């Protein structure tokens, strides 16, 4: 996983609440057995005017020019600003894969769905929770100013606005550590292999039926 330290990037809007993972990446693209290549199909049903299919060349498809991600001013955006309960629905990790593949590194919202939030950290994406008033203010500033960009610094847990103002965000210590160092958490867990084995021995004695074979 790539480490995350600090980024400065253009902010793009997804100005609705309850953006579900079916909207982020429609199911037909879940048939892939790879982790990459989902970016061109991020928000597929909103971005294009036709129905997308896996494996097709997306460059010639008709764009929905009313969808903000297609506006010239938001090209190259790496920060997504959105409303509450972003990423609700399915556990598909294809959603963060698609956001990452498109080029997003940070998502700012008043709240996220639990599984999606968790999946982001496994892929070097930083989901930031800010209260609704602050998110509203960011939306206003972003709409007012072409090329509105934010700097996000992970170490200090701060968002720095174009006017120099800064906002602090909360983050779990373990997740921050993994994200900063691009750590593989399987490797970390396996450092506790002894604890897992001794738990297993205890468990097998107390609840032997849990280890009955599925013949």
């Amino acid at each position: 996983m790539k480490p995350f330290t600090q980024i400065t990037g253009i902010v793009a809007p997804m100005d609705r609440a309850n953006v579900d993972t079916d909207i982020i990446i429609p199911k037909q693209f879940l048939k892939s057995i790879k982790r990459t290549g989902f970016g061109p199909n991020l928000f597929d049903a909103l971005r294009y005017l036709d129905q997308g299919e896996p494996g097709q060349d997306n460059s010639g498809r008709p764009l929905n020019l009313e969808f903000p991600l297609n506006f010239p001013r938001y090209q190259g955006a790496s920060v997504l600003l959105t409303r509450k309960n972003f990423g609700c629905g399915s556990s598909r990790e294809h959603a963060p894969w698609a956001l990452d593949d498109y080029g997003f590194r940070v998502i700012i919202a008043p709240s996220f769905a639990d599984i999606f939030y968790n999946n982001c950290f496994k892929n070097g994406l930083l989901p930031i929770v800010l209260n609704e008033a602050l998110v509203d203010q960011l939306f206003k500033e972003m709409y007012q100013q072409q090329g509105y960009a934010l700097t996000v610094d992970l170490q200090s847990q701060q968002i720095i606005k174009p006017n120099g103002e800064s906002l602090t965000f909360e983050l779990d210590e373990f997740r921050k550590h993994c994200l900063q160092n691009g750590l593989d958490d399987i490797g970390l867990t396996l450092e506790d292999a002894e604890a897992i084995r001794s738990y297993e021995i205890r468990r097998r004695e107390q609840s032997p039926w849990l280890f009955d074979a599925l013949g």
Partner: protein
Amino acid sequence: MGHSDNTKFDIRSVNQKKTLYDKLWQDHLVKCRDDGTALIYIDRHLIHEVTSPQAFEGLRLAGRKPWRTDSVVATPDHNVPSEVAERAAGIAGIRDDVSRLQVQTLEDNCKEFGIVEFGINEPGQGIVHVIGPETGATLPGMTVVCGDSHTSTHGALGALAQGIGTSEVEHVLATQCLIQKKMKNMLVRVEGALAPGVTAKDLVLAIIGEIGTAGGTGYTIEFGGNVIRKLSMEGRMTLCNMAIEAGARAGIVAVDQTTLDYVKGKPYAPKGAHWEQAVAAWSQLHSDDGAHFDTVVELQGETISPQVSWGTSPEMVLPISARIPDPAQQSDATKRNGIQRALEYMGLKAGQKISDIALDRVFIGSCTNSRIEDLRAAAAVVAGQHKATSVKQVLVVPGSQAVKAQAEKEGLDKIFLAAGFEWREPSCSMCLAMNADKLGAGEHCASTSNRNFEGRQGYGGRTHLVSPSMAAAAAIAGRFVDVREQLDKITNSIGTTEGAGQ
């Protein structure tokens, strides 16, 4: 404990009262780490074809082996065809090349890593959340994970069951553990009784309508109260299945006699001395009296009517007698925009009666409502009638090979076929339309599934979430009707086994 009159001791014992979730968490705690996270041991790992290929690939790339292959059970469900002829030829018969490769990849990975798989046309195959409880692969007191958000279903058994992403699938394969922080406790208590014709599906839709799709975020929801106690296991599975639609990763129901009666004799349920030992342990799987819940939500069963979702989020749901809401009456701008956008997508007008929505297709199936009791409830409404000519297609897709066999034994397939419905092969089917079963753009569907998101059942498709009996009644009438009006035709009980095992 509790027999001492020592005040200090009493205070300590008060503090020790635990919720069911607290107990399940503590039972599986491998290690608390300094940073506040914990390693939680996983007893059962369910796997399907969509969210596992990248996890197996990750293991291969890192040169890792699964920690405990006998904890893993796999089956293909999302991509497999439901259409009888296409299904008959197994994997080789799957017409969609991309789907075929994904189902084949699951089989190859299971062989390579030595994992038990119920293959595409084997007797154990089915929707992963149907076959888990039905085979006894998922049991009370277990921690259960699957790369699928509807893993919450297995919480009906008194298990801590959660959906995970693909990175976590790989993590659990490699370490048998999840890294988690403990969730908060929520109790949804439903007292009284459900009226005849009102099912677990209506109940859970009403709960989501009440607390919203983010209402349970950060919580494990325990469903309790008299109404829950009277629900059958199938009803409890429907309820826990949709906990995730209320934002909660896990929903749970305490173990009682109904649970034990259900589990006993299942192929992978403990036998002999292990059964006695298990039952003794499972008798603790309930919240202690006076245990602390961070949030309590209370509903009265009698107030709940059959529900129909009208919008593009499961919280956009109303009783059958209601009218479509008016965005102009909503003061919050984000909510107003949400309602407005949903009405445009759904092709509905504010003030329109729900019962005036005409239907193009009907889908009876999914991990929410494809169990035998669901099919019985639908068949009871349908018997002797025929689908409306305006309804293009009614799909009935049993949740597993076992459900299919049982339904055929009871002659339910004949009732559906006589009504002009299609009787299909076990799969996720039109719940998420990854196989060939899809809505066309603009089509309205009465669906027993769990999500009414934009495009969920097909590009431009319009989903209305309902119970199996409401879906069946809608198929006959061509529009939504209150199934209670047909009550005299319904002989079987729906969604509940009155007084079972109490």
